[in-house]
């Protein structure tokens, strides 16, 4: 399946991927409102996490593993492996906020929702035409959406 692959050689640490992520996951679909209002009021958060050390930086998000530890750990069935697309899906309604997935994920790709008892995780921008927003927003092609 196609996944989002970060390239630490060319990640310039601009965080534009995060801004793209919160915009497409916002109610308003507007960067300014999403960042200045929804982020603060509704706890809107980017699915990506930035790792930075010295000159190296990289934007991490869910890897949609073939054999995901989070799905095995999920006690409520909120995290599932979609047999058709191969994506690791998250159903916010089913989630009980036990954080088992957070502890199980070896990549630290799952984050707590800032205000709700839920998690934040990459959904590969399922409904977005043209694929994941972070990949489209990266100015240096440091994120690639491809089969490997």
């Amino acid at each position, binding site marked *: 399946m196609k996944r989002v692959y970060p390239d630490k050689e060319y990640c310039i*640490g601009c*965080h534009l991927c995060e801004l793209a992520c919160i915009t497409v996951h916002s109610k308003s679909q507007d960067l300014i409102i999403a960042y*200045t209002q929804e982020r603060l009021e509704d706890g809107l958060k980017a699915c990506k996490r930035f790792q930075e050390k010295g000159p190296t930086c990289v934007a991490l998000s869910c890897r949609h593993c073939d054999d995901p530890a989070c799905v095995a750990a999920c006690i409520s069935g909120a995290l599932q492996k979609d047999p058709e697309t191969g994506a690791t899906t998250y159903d916010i309604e089913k989630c009980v906020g036990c954080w088992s997935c957070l502890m199980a994920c070896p990549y630290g790709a799952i984050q707590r929702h800032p205000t709700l008892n839920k998690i934040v995780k990459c959904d590969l921008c399922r409904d977005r035409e043209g694929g994941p927003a972070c990949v489209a927003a990266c100015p240096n092609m440091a994120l690639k959406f491809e089969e490997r």
Partner: protein
Amino acid sequence: MLFQPINKNYHDYRIERDKDLCINCKVCIRQCAYEAHFWDEARQKVRHDNTKCVGCHRCEALCPTGALCIRLNESEFRPNACWRPIFMKNIYKQADTGGVLLAGMGSPVDIPVYWDNLLLDASQVTNPSIDPLREPMELKTFLGSKPDRVEFAAPAKGKKGKPKLTTKLAPQIELNYPIMFSAMSFGSINFNLHVAMARAATELGICYNTGEGGLHKSLYKYGKNTIVQVASGRFGVHAEYLNAGAGIEIKIGQGAKPGIGGHLPGEKINEKVSETRMIPVGSDAISPAPHHDIYSIEDLHQLIFALKEASRYRVPVSVKIAAVHNVAAIASGIVRAGADIVAIDGMRGGTGAAPAMIRDNVGIPIELAIAAVDQRLRDEGIRNRASIIAAGGTRCSADVVKAIALGADACYIGTAALLAVGCTLCGKCYTGKCPWGIATNDSKLSKRQNPDIAARKMANLIRAWGHEIEEMLGGMGLNSIESLRGNRDKLRAVGLSSTEMDILGVKHAGR
């Protein structure tokens, strides 16, 4: 300004931040290499310090909401035709530092750009124009010494076959476009851009020039599209290097700084540069002003042939000089010394660092130099013995066409190639902090140039110019770049004096 030198407020740029659009996302802070943007903890918002802005526009380009606009600072001194603000600010700077004024990129001073005063011809009625989309159009260019005449041997009597060429031809560099990427050393620009130039040149079937910093081992595979340079510092020069490329260039001078050497500060010498230049990490790389083994045309002759010996006469040897007053006589000497190519760099040529006084006041424009050299070599009957490359201030495909009509065989482009990958001509290359990741070896900044993107952009630029050159040639009724070379009848001047037209060898428009 508090705690600052009193002239600190005479800064060049102003950052305008639209309060309605700025969301305090800090992208500008992360992008600015000069720390002009900063996070104000007390006010909990992004702010900026105008005095630190160099006008590179990186923040403006990456701002996700378009909240930023970089403007010239409007503060105006009392108008004075003689003491223009630039001279006043320079004096304030030097009074503070006691140092030489450094500058980067080509000279911004208002010296005539003759390209703008030259117009091209087109066919009407009496001769047909050619549509390059429907008919063949040849841009292929061969650089190197051409024979005085060609001799053929006919097939033996009674036998069939084609005549055979018996003249031994000198080695040539074959180019699909009459354009090359000019010498920008590894060190002055970073490795990612060398990879990009090498890949783009290979894809296009043209050449790029290594500059004086040697060639990294991993780029030897692009050798067929590489010209290796030998300059006064001899950085990274060894037998394998000389045999790695399709041509060798002896750099005598550079258009942006004729008569002076180069100085790559130690901070730019990282592991990779050190290994390639064969100097210790962190040591300054100083190129002397002259080659210490060249004090005459005879000495140059020796070096040309030493390099030809070292490369077993397989590749042409080029000599690059800055366009200076006696350029025609010097070029004649260079051709007689055995050079296969003469590259001439005009005074608008770029640089990573040069004293501003030299860059803005020394040398002559490339248009006059090319015309003078081509004419001189023709008058002396030696024009065929060397190709001429025009460098320095080629801004568009029409400039290339005009340069070739004035007598050049091909053009080197440097600044245009850097513009293609994002350069905004802020001219702060010498600080080593290029926010576009070009003139820097800082590992955090240099990765702003992804070779995949840079190579594509450079290749796109040359292809686009290629299409335009074909259109212009077709319009003139020519189907080959060869037919344009030195064909000054295709040029007319507007607004030039008779001396200028005499040197350029062109008639005034209307004649």
